[in-house]
């Protein structure tokens, strides 16, 4: 869908994007992750053709990004806003027409969306008469009404109450099932982790890593497991060459261990050892979250920045 190649963007006194490249697959949900000020919005603005990169190119379906792609992209900026004094229906029409829809078409689509989101009665209202949450809903509809192939959402869930956030999330997933490619940009990595197929992590204008979420997590697996067993059994301790215990906790009649499996051994080997000893209750691999990976990656380079960049 989108091929980003060696994008560099320099502002007056700081480098916003330093040689960023990545690939966004058609029909995927892509996470653009990084702390505030990492360069996410700069990259989004380039994809939206709001600003031009100093060097590097963006390709959409193999073609150099140009004005004709504008109608295929829907963009929900982080800073939401609409004309306060303009009637909502008219405003939606205007925005949809700017994206290249004909008026008739725009009116039909908007009516359809308003019905779906239960906001039919808002057509003649003004934005300033709506609550913040309602405004967000209107803005979301404005983003997707022209049926874009690529939907870019900058901090999509901020400002929504949990109920509305869920409605919006479901709508986004439905759009994705119908073929739209979604880009989530957020600094709250845990909020989109389970939604994304692929991600790119950027920090201080540089790409830290990108790829499929599963592949990334596989790479960062540490062979750590959580083992829970009934405490009445003999306490388990680490075994050289097999596993070590990094934490131990006892709650009522159960004991929870965090174990690290030694190199060359598998969980099966550990189970073979444990089964005769204790009555197992639960076994689970501890997979690092994207956030953990991020902190890990950033700390490796510059330990001092890890904490302050963490939200």
């Amino acid at each position, binding site marked *: 869908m989108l091929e980003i190649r060696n994008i560099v963007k320099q502002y007056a006194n700081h480098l916003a994007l330093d040689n960023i490249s990545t690939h966004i697959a058609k029909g995927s949900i892509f996470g653009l992750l990084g702390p505030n000020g990492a360069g996410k919005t700069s990259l989004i603005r380039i994809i939206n053709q709001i600003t*031009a990169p100093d060097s590097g190119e963006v390709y959409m379906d193999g073609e150099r990004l140009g004005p004709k792609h504008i109608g295929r992209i829907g963009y929900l900026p982080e800073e939401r806003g*609409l004309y*306060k004094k303009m009637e909502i229906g008219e405003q939606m029409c205007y*925005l949809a027409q700017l994206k290249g829809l004909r008026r008739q078409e725009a009116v039909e689509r908007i009516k359809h969306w308003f019905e779906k989101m239960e906001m039919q009665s808002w057509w003649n209202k003004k934005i300033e008469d709506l609550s913040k949450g309602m405004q967000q809903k209107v803005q979301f509809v404005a983003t997707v009404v022209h049926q874009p192939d690529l939907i870019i959402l900058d901090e999509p869930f901020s400002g929504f109450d949990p109920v509305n956030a869920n409605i919006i999330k479901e709508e986004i997933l439905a759009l994705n099932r119908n073929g739209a490619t979604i880009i989530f940009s957020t600094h709250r990595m845990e909020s989109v982790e389970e939604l994304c197929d692929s991600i790119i992590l950027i920090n201080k204008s540089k790409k830290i890593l990108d790829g499929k979420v599963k592949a990334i997590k596989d790479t960062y697996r540490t062979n750590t497991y959580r083992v829970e067993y009934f405490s009445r059994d003999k306490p388990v301790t680490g075994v050289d060459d097999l596993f070590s215990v990094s934490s131990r906790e006892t709650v009522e009649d159960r004991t929870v261990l965090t174990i690290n499996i030694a190199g060359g051994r598998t969980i099966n080997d550990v189970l073979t050892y444990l089964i005769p000893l204790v009555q197992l209750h639960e076994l689970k691999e501890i997979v690092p979250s994207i956030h953990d990976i991020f902190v890990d990656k950033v700390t490796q380079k510059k330990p001092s920045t890890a904490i302050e960049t963490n939200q």
Partner: protein
Amino acid sequence: MNKILLIIRREYLSRVKKKSFLLITFLVPIFLIAVYAIAILLAVKSFESNQATVQVIDQSGLFEGKLHDTETITFVETSGNVSDARAGIRGAEKKLLLIIPENITETSRVELLSSEMANVGTQKTISGQLEGVLRDIAFEKAGIDRRTVEAIRPSVTIEARELTPEGEKQSSAEATVGIAMTLSIVVYICLFLYGTQVMRGVIEEKNNRIIEVIISSVKPFQLMMGKIIGIGLVGLTQFILWIILSATLMGGARMAIMDDMTIEQVAATQEQMPSGGKPAAYGDVMQALNTVNFQEIIIGFLLYFFGGYLLYSALFAAVGSAVDSETETQQFTFPITLPLLFAYILSFGVLVNDPNGPLSFWLSMIPLTSPIAMLVRIPFGVPTWQLVLSFALLAGGFVLTTWIAARIYRIGILMYGKKASYKELIKWFRYKG
């Protein structure tokens, strides 16, 4: 291109539909007409209130049969005693008592009594007639024939005619100056008014944060131009409506007030009035206005207003993009409006007095001042080549300011919370892409 039209349409409709637009569009001509009507009504009223009967007690006996009734004053000679006459006019309306003392030739003083303050016009008429009679007496005493005096009192009337390629045409300097001044005021105020509207519109979009949504669909330049043209069309609509409404109402008002008197009749009536002191008689003004080429002025006004507006509003748009709120605009708008202010102030002195001098010429060529300077000159008549050159320069100036403004605008609209300085603006201007 299609998108620019959409933007123009929105900017235009969202303003024209506002109640305040309708209010201003209809109220201004009504207000003007009301002022005009009140002025005429007052003139008519004062004409009526001049009607008075003057009882004359002539103790000197010099004035018998020598005071003539006029349109407004009827003289009644009485011989009764003063105190009776005094009692007679007490509380009476439009009755005056003129007491001419015996020694009038020495003192030149008379008493005029009335229950209400005597009208200035009436006083003038009375004193004029008394003076005339006294002068005749003085002439007689000195042995000078009155006719001789009248013959040697010269009277010169200037008939101003302008030599134009089409032949001679009557011109009226006063009317032309009046129109030139009015145009200068109107253009100055309107350029300011509509330029500020553009600036406000830009700030509004920036503050609303809708800007990012829109420029992900259109180029910043398209948005800026759409806004400028849209608001400009609002201005033109307003002017055209004002002109039409004023013309219609003016016609109606004239009919209502004058009944079926024609302008000539009014003029004639006023000329007959002996108190020649009435300033610029209504008929004269109308006649003078008829000599002015309104068509040329209106077309010139619309063209120069729009040209000047485009030039200035682009700068106003750039200012709007550079700030976060209207309170910060001061430092940028002042230098922008300086040339305008300059031309405006000069229009009252230099331009009107010397519309074809070198300063007037250059001011009407420089695009920053020409919208005012040229409009002030047009009523006096400007050679066609100057008009064409000046307008071409204005168009060129507009392209230049728009180009500069667009370069600042495209960066400015995405900058938040940054106090813009001139240095910053120059930096933005230089950004590529």
